[in-house]
């Protein structure tokens, strides 16, 4: 793993490119799977997120440079999901769009890709985003039935058709429900994380405390109106439905473990300190400084840099959700920064154990030397700066929408503070992870 760091030493932050700025964001409140958005499609929700953004910034009928978004759970008919959502929105019909999919990092990756295009001068404005519906998930026919149906369509004569149909067996009629399991290990994400959580000896109490803080911080942010220009209600939902403002450490402590049960007493991951399946959509408006000035739009923060990483979780070399741990030192080194240079840390709470395992890894001298190729521990994240406006444990986690939620909220927090930097870390299925840096605008 040492070569992971070494291999990237040549990468340098670009100094010649112009700035890409976060202008603002919009998302719909996130709802638990099977809840208020049970009958909303990905396209419905993404369109709503775009329309709220258009309304906030007066973009009606405007041709945006490019729109990129995606979904993790996607119907095959949604091959052009983002373009279809643009066509259904109040944006100009001649706004180009493309789909991105990088599991839970989809939303963040759309921001990075589009910000890079802006930095290069290829486009002036962009909308990044993502959506996911665990309620309206695609259900596929079995592999056996699929083959029979395809062969049937190719059969010409009646005897041929009958012959194909005769292959049909009752078991072929059972549909394939969607799963969040890893294709190569068969383990669910939660089971993977349970192994990592246990390896890093993360306690149940620490996980519950992180979950409690997430709810507490998100409720506080709503209370002070922080989301009034970040969220537009949808289908009568005005706040994230998963938010439990009145939760307590006692209540969280009562929940039974749901992942890692084979660990016996070592099972610590509950429904309280793991994210639920969630429906929702988010969008972020990006632009060049020139575009923002010309249209008298706000400039909340600069998109500074980003880095992706992947780990070999299949052969057990690393935990499934630990890739951001590897991406982080590479990005920090390239920018000459340490954790001390940041005022906000947005570490996506797939599971409380994910966040705490990452923090523990960065604080561990041996791990940082042996696995990250550093001279010592990467550093300690100041917990008072972590997910200060709540994160996925409280808000919920509609996979591809999480990146947009984080980028818009962090940019606003930086604009409110008026200075400083923010760090984003998002883990993703397939042993991947993406990290990014936002920076407050000069006042």
């Amino acid at each position, binding site marked *: 793993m040492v070569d992971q760091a070494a291999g990237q030493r040549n990468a340098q932050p670009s100094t010649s490119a112009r700035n890409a700025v976060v202008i603002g964001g919009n998302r719909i409140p996130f709802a638990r799977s099977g809840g208020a958005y049970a009958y909303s499609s990905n396209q419905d929700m993404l369109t*709503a997120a775009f329309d709220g953004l*258009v*309304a906030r910034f*007066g973009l009606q009928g405007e041709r945006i440079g490019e729109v990129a978004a995606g979904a993790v759970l996607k119907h095959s008919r949604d091959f052009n999901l983002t373009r279809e959502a643009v066509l259904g929105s109040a944006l100009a019909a001649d706004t180009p769009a493309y789909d991105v999919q990088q599991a839970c990092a989809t939303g963040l990756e759309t921001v990075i890709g589009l910000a890079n295009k802006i930095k290069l001068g290829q486009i002036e404005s962009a909308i990044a985003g993502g959506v996911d519906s665990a309620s309206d998930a695609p259900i596929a026919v079995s592999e056996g039935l699929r083959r029979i149906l395809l062969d049937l369509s190719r059969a010409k004569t009646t005897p041929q058709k009958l012959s194909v149909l005769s292959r049909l067996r009752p078991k072929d009629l059972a549909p394939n429900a969607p799963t969040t399991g890893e294709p190569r290990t068969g383990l669910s994400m939660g089971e993977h994380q349970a192994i990592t959580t246990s390896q890093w000896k993360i306690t149940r109490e620490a996980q519950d405390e992180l979950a409690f803080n997430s709810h507490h911080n998100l409720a506080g942010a709503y209370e002070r109106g922080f989301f009034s220009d970040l969220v537009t209600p949808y289908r009568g939902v*005005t706040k994230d439905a998963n938010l439990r403002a009145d939760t307590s450490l006692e209540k969280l402590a009562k929940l039974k473990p749901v992942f890692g049960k084979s660990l016996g007493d070592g099972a610590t991951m509950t429904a309280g300190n793991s994210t639920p399946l969630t429906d929702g959509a988010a969008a972020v408006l990006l632009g060049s400084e020139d575009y923002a000035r010309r249209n*008298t739009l706000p400039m909340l923060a600069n998109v500074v840099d980003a880095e992706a990483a992947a780990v070999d979780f299949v052969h057990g070399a690393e935990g499934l959700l630990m890739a951001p741990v590897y991406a982080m030192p590479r990005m920090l080194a390239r920018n000459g920064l340490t954790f001390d240079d940041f005022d906000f840390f947005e570490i996506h709470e797939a599971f409380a154990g994910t966040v705490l395992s990452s923090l523990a890894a960065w604080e561990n001298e041996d791990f940082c030397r042996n696995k990250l190729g550093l001279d010592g521990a990467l550093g300690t994240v100041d917990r008072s700066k972590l997910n200060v406006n709540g994160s996925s444990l409280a808000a919920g986690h509609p996979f591809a929408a999480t990146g947009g939620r984080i980028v818009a909220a962090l940019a606003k927090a930086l604009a409110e503070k008026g200075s400083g930097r923010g760090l984003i870390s998002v883990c993703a299925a397939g042993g991947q992870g993406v990290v990014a840096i936002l920076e407050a605008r000069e006042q």
Partner: protein
Amino acid sequence: MTDNYLNLVNSGPAGNLAKRLGLPRPAVLRRHSPGAPLVPGPLLVLGSSAAADTLATLLLEWNQDVRRHARPGERLGAIVVVLESVTDPGQLAAPILELGQALRQLARGGRIVTVSRPAVGCTNPAEAAARQGIDGIVRSIGRELRAGATANGILLGSDAPVQAASGALRFLLSGKSAFVDGQFITVSATEPAEAQNEDRPLTGQTAVVTGAARGIGAEIAAVLSRDGATVVVVDVPAAGEQLAKVANRVGGTALQLDITADDATTRILDHVQHRHGSLDLLVHNAGITRDKLLANMDAARWESVLAVNLASQLRVNEALLASDVFAGSGRIVCLASTSGIAGNRGQSNYAASKAGVIGMVRSTGLALEGSGRTINAVAPGFIETEMTAKMPFATREVARRLSSLQQGGLPGDVAETIAFLASPAAAGINGEVLRVCGQSLVGA
């Protein structure tokens, strides 16, 4: 909410039956549509003063077909009666009886507009009597007219020349005033400014409309946008979904905020300054009802209504008038209500807030005199909205038929009046309370 009865009596056989039975026969009102003529026929100008000649000339300049005497059998689009120089009640007889003779010739959706001077402040008793007499005449004609015709008056303040009436006259003659009936508008000496673009008089202006997510507020945003304004629509975050739809429909921006919050004014002014430079028009439309008989009224119901409907307007106005972001020719239009004029059972809190708005507008109007800025109130009567659709059937039917026009108004009727008060043509109108009620008996 559809007025099924109105549709029924305007569809052949049922109309004849209603006529024979002496039932109310509300007309389909003549409302504004782009490109439609100002009035549905020639204009008759009555009155023998030089001012009457001046006004007749003005109407000719608007390319209207003007008569100084009615021609037998000719359908008239409107009759303008110029009475600005009457000094004695005896002088009313001739012009008013001539008006009476011409009334039968008034077309459907026709207009009667008087131009006179206010009795208030007049020191000569006979002159004041004559002037006040016109008030009784106009309100009576309003009750006599049928087929969607209306009667209103313009009062020329202190030394205002008759030309000062032109902005209000155009509005009262047009389909935009369809539900304004039996009302008087006082205009000051300020010469109404000519709009650069008659069809889009608010071009280049920025307007803020509160409570814009639905009903009257959404319609106000639409009409202001049609007239050329860039509209910032404001409503509480919980109404954000509808608000976004309104913003996208009118090509404006949506600002989710609670108007009673401490930072509401700051956020509105910051948004307008940053996005649009300055604010030309603020429409205080946000309002709530929490009805209860006073004997059953609790503090929460009382305070929430007063906070949203009145205290927020006071606070926002204070900050606005002290701010450079509010244009030198800025306009404020506040939503009052006929409940604030006549009172309403179960609405002591609401009536207090709406009557309070009227008091605030008159007081602020005095302070703004001569400043170039104006403030006015619009007091809607029964308007067909989601709110009135929830009224019990019988109460709603009675409320509808209780006006001279025998029907409820539409949100657009309120919006048109607000757009007029925001337009350059209304520069001389300040501190006024204009009712949009179809001459409802309530509060008359």
